[in-house]
């Protein structure tokens, strides 16, 4: 299940990203001289305050935004990229099951695994429900299932657990960790939540507010047990963000 790409890292290099002037608002420099590599099957968290360009960077990496100076090299794994959006973005006129099935090609053997995947994210009972009849937490689970059924080589996630209540967010984080362990894949995860960043990531990239560039690039050294320990997370948080 591991990389078809051998051990090639993802290479991201954004020299300049500008939002053009609209109406009375001036053009705005969003990202400047950001370049980094992501090792295969590592879990990189990009963090920073709102408006620092995190989501823009992720859209560029995903190929949704091509209007920038620089280059993105995802290697041969680029065809197996999945993006979990900040909002679930399910098709409201298709059932949960159909929403998952639609991302697979017709006749793909993975269709048979959809019920099992939905069980795993706790949506076994809601398979035939329309998304708008479900809670936001359940819609997020469906969107995770949709991403994971593809067994992606590269998984991009844009604040997928924001605006959820604490227990729901915690259980979804655990689900993500579990899915990541059973199918290791290269993850780039955007969040502004520091504790979440430390709990999930193997490495943190901090974008500086207002400067549109990288402020800090650190590796997280926590064992699996420590990741469930609030005190350990807090200590790591102080070490990283005190700087």
């Amino acid at each position: 299940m591991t990389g078809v790409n051998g051990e090639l890292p993802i290479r991201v290099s954004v020299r300049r990203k500008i939002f053009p002037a609209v109406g009375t608002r001036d053009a705005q420099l969003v990202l400047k001289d950001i370049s980094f590599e992501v090792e295969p099957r590592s879990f990189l968290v990009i963090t920073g305050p709102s408006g620092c360009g995190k989501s823009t960077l992720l859209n560029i990496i995903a190929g949704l935004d091509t209007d920038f100076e620089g280059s993105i090299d995802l290697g041969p794994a680029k065809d197996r990229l999945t993006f979990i959006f900040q909002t679930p973005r399910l098709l409201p006129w298709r059932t949960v099951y159909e929403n998952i099935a639609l991302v697979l090609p017709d006749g793909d053997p993975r269709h048979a695994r959809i019920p099992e995947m939905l069980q795993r994210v706790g949506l076994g009972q809601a398979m035939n429900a329309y998304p708008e009849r479900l809670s936001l937490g359940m819609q997020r689970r469906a969107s995770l299932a949709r991403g994971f059924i593809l067994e992606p080589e590269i998984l991009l996630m844009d604040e997928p657990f924001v605006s959820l209540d604490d227990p729901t967010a915690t259980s979804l984080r655990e689900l993500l960790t579990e899915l990541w362990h059973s199918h290791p894949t290269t993850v780039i995860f955007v969040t502004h939540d520091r504790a979440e960043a430390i709990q999930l990531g193997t490495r943190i990239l901090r974008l500086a507010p207002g400067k549109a560039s990288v402020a800090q690039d650190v590796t997280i050294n926590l064992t699996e047990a420590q990741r469930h320990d609030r005190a350990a997370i807090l200590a790591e948080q102080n070490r990283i963000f005190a700087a």
Partner: protein
Amino acid sequence: MAGSLLALAVLWYVIAVYAQNRYLPTPLAVFDVLLREGANGELWKNTSATLVRVAVAFVVSMIIGTAIGLVLGRSKPADKFFDAWLILFLNLPALVTITLCYIWFGLTDAAAITAVALNKIPNVAVNMREGARSLSKDLDEMAKVYKFGWWKTLRHVTLPQLAPFFAAAARSGLALVWKIVLVVEAFGRSSGVGYRLSIAFQEFDVTTILAYALAFILVVQVIEFTVLQPLQSRVTAWRR
């Protein structure tokens, strides 16, 4: 609903009996004429001629109006340029398009249907333009990331978003189209409900006018309840 319609019929009956005027027949007299026209085949002949014209004009305007609406909704420059045209055609009186079509293309069915379509197309276009404008960019990106391809995107992402606008345009469209078809028939055709009404008008035959009006309202109601309403509730079944 049946009760409220019955009350209206009773009210009509009472007023007609009280007025005792040959220009206000009772519901029973109208019903008699309906039976007579039904028996001699006139009712069927005229209603079916009108229905065919309604159907053709309706389909033509829905197709052309949808195409125009989608182009205008997706392309800002096209919308900017053609918006004034759309407003002009929206405000063009039906009578003007009808007379001009007959003068330019002769007293033919093609001219009649063109006239009706010209009245309806701007209406459909405005509706569908609204639909195309409100297409979700979020879902578009989702389809792109998950490599839906154009056919899957059209079928599962784009069309379902347009369906409610299409259903609304269809429902308001049918009502408008059949009214204009009657005018077109009264002006320059020798069959159809409109034609029959114009003859009745020349004879001041109010009973026949009411009989045909009722017959056609009935037909349109049946289409509304058996086709259009089920269609609309089907395309919006997923709503909360």
